[in-house]
């Protein structure tokens, strides 16, 4: 897929979403948003609203599934869960991110420590 700018953003966010779902199991939208904010040490100024288009996209890709259920406080909410395809995608993206991160890291080292 040729990624455009929003794709990149959704892509990163999407990775965070599926990782969250892998770690904590099925969650509704607000819990996912809170979890991402907590993990990033509240450093990520996430507009919680941007989560929903990302969730929809992930669902279209069949990486997550959704159903209506009840929240802890008894509210009717949509609960998202990771699918098997999503788990596979997560492993792929994890590997890619680590590779990319290590490359970037090495580059950064070069600039710090010129030959």
């Amino acid at each position: 897929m040729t990624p455009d700018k929003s794709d990149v953003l959704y892509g990163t966010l999407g990775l965070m979403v599926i990782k969250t779902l892998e770690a904590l199991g099925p969650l509704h939208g607000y819990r996912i948003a809170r979890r991402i904010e907590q993990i990033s040490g509240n450093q990520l100024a996430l507009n919680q609203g941007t989560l929903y288009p990302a969730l929809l996209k992930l669902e279209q890709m069949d990486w997550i599934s959704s159903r209506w259920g009840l929240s802890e406080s008894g509210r009717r909410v949509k609960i998202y869960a990771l699918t098997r395809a999503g788990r596979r995608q997560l492993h792929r993206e994890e590997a890619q991110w680590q590779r990319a991160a290590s490359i970037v890291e090495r580059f950064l080292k070069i600039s710090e420590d010129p030959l």
Partner: protein
Amino acid sequence: MTRLRILLSRLRALLRSRRMDREMDDEIASHLAEAADDYVRQGLSPEEARRAAQRSFGGVPQTKEVYRQVRSFTLLEELSRDLRYALRTLRKSPAFTLTAAATLALAIAANTAMFSVLNAVLLRPLPYRSPERLAMLWTEDPTQNLREGRSALWDVDQWQRRSQSFADLATFDSVSTLLTGPEGVEQIVGASISPNLLPVLGVQPVLGRSFSAEETELGQGLVLISHRFWQARFGGSSDALGARLVLNGSPARIVGILPADFQIGRFDADVWQPHSTHRGGRGPQTWFVIGRLRPGVTFEQAQAEMSAVGRGLNDQLPANERNQGVTVVPLSLYVVGPQSRLALWILGGAVFCVFLIAAANVTSLSLARSTARAREMAVRAALGANAGRIVRQLLTESVVLAVVSGVMGTVLAVWGIRLIRAFGPANLPRLNQVSVDLRVLGWALVTSLLAGILVGLAPAVTTLRRDLRPSGEESGRSVSGGTSTRRIRRALVVAEFALAIVLLVGAGLLIRSWWYVTNVDSGFNPGRVLVIEVSPPPTVTVPAQRTGLYSRVLEEIQAVPGVVSAGLIDDLFSDNPRERVLTVERNDGTLSERLRFTSDAITADFFRTVGTPLRRGRFFSTGDGPDALPVAIINEAMARRSWPGDDPVGRRLKLGARDSDRSWYTVVGVVGDMRRQGIEREALPQMFVPLAQDNPPGNVALFIRTSSDDPLAMAGALRAAVRRVEKDAPIFGVAPLEQQLGTYLTQRRFQTSLLTGFSIVALLMAAVGIYGLIQYSIATRTQEIGLRMAIGAQAGDIFRMILGEGLTLSLSGVALGLVGALWLGHAGSSLLLGVTASDPLTFTAVSLLLTAVAIAACYFPARRAMKVDPIRALRVT
């Protein structure tokens, strides 16, 4: 496939957008509520918590907007990106694109045109109210192998009284009608119908009204006219209503105008007059009968009931007419008979085979191209495109290609439909209604998309299988194409040959039938014979006057230079003669039977003029006058039927039952059988009497044998001769006899030439297919060939290897195709004449032809392979 799923979920979203909107609202609302709860727990007041929740969420409307975009709009955007890319790729290789598009366009055009015929003739419902409940009813006489006989009004009346299946029964028949107009008298086609015919059909006049039963019984001169007649005579003006026509010498008032194209099957007329359905007794006249089933009654139930009614009626019929039955035939089956249906389906199937072959060829081309593009695909895969993306791109390309071809094909088809309407067989019912409608366009679209998928699928699948290894392994020169690509292409060539042979065998069998039919002894020698149909003017009413007029006309014509001989008959061709009672004297006594036969008055020179041979006895002479012994000539079919194994000359026969007061005729001659009900049908029993001894008919056909190869050139002189005798005599239908006989063959000619055309196209495409494959396989195997030669293979070995490859493919295809052809032959055997469905000659000839074509297609590439220079082939890296 993920892409497909996204597409589907987006399409679903498009369809259910309101519900999805509501769900999104609910979801956001509960999100905000949950967030507010959290803030309240942190100690904020409910109002502050609500605002904080809003803040951390961001703009609700913006979110919804993005959400909606994700849901639907990106779909269009991505689609247009794919389309642009596909168009660019196709433009980059114009040779491939043009070849593929032209091939597919022709195939789609042929398919669409053929479908439009099937659509108009077979699929569109007949233009009556609830046409599926209309049936033709026929009198059946198993002893005479007669299934579709006309029926007497008395019988119809009895059927109606004794049966429950039909809501109503109506009768109709054609009548020859003379129209007296300002320019003189002319012959037009008239119909005589029962007053309830239009209500039974559920048809309303476009203007005016139909007749009532009372008016009909009163015998008021009323007439309905056809739309065509209305346009031609009255310019479509409403003044026509109430206008008077003079028909057969008596006035008739126009009460209504029928809808355009109104006809009952092949039955058509310009003026429609009612006949009374209440006549005492069971007269000699018989009618076509049409009935409307009551709701819920099936044709089977109606048939069962009518069979019982027929048996019940037998007791009331004269002894020689017992054992009659009633046949119920759905109107649609009567309008287009089983043979025409079969032929049309076969032609439709044939043209679809051509389409498949064309698609196979284009597939093969695009497979070859996809191998060449393997490197491009590998690069794109390396750059991050996943397999699904590449497959989708390939499919988009082929669908774009197919849609372009489809548009071109549809334009061509419109043109083809015009050709079919102009040159198709005129006696194929409803052919004049062939047109492009939504269903035809839908079919064009379906075939185009099918072509796109067929053409794109194989390259896509092989691309997926190739696993897009970026190593470039597949593009290595040591491997000849991809193995799977090659396997598919070989299978395609085998399939092409199999389909081609099925079509060729079909065409071969039809050609053999055509050859048989055109060489069958028609009982005529039609060359150089001109036919002119003449009526006496309405002022001539006394029979003796007509006899005198006819003989003076013949004398005048015989005096025209260039005329060899001239004869006259009342009506030469009759599709469906009525059955009548005939009584004959035999060794074992006098026999009366109801029989389908013709009886015509002729003049002495008639047989000599049309070239019908005398088998026994003599022709008529001028001695067979009104006062001489009544004589008759019969054909061989009647001789066989009435005097089997005996010489009929000198025997007597008469029309009507044993006790009828008609006079006895003595048979003086037996002539050869004339195929007067169509070249393809065996001659019926026929008898002829001298014109001078008969009541002279109201209109006659003059047959003139000329000394010119182009008898039509004499038409002017002959018309003038008729006019010299009687200037008011209506003359119509001047045509060479050959042409009149030829009209019987138009449907067969149409079928034969179309199937032959299709099979030639199939053959050429199969040849191109195998040529392309072999050519390509040699191009990719140059190195291998060089290697083989380097280690000692002779040029001849290489030649044999390549030719062997081609032959294996074509022979496999031929073997498969012959099985299909046998099946097709049996399915279509009712279309064949004078040849069996498994005719060994056709099968052998076609197999040899196809093998020869395959060899020829492989010969040139193989020759080139022989000339490969091993040094150069191996050196190139």
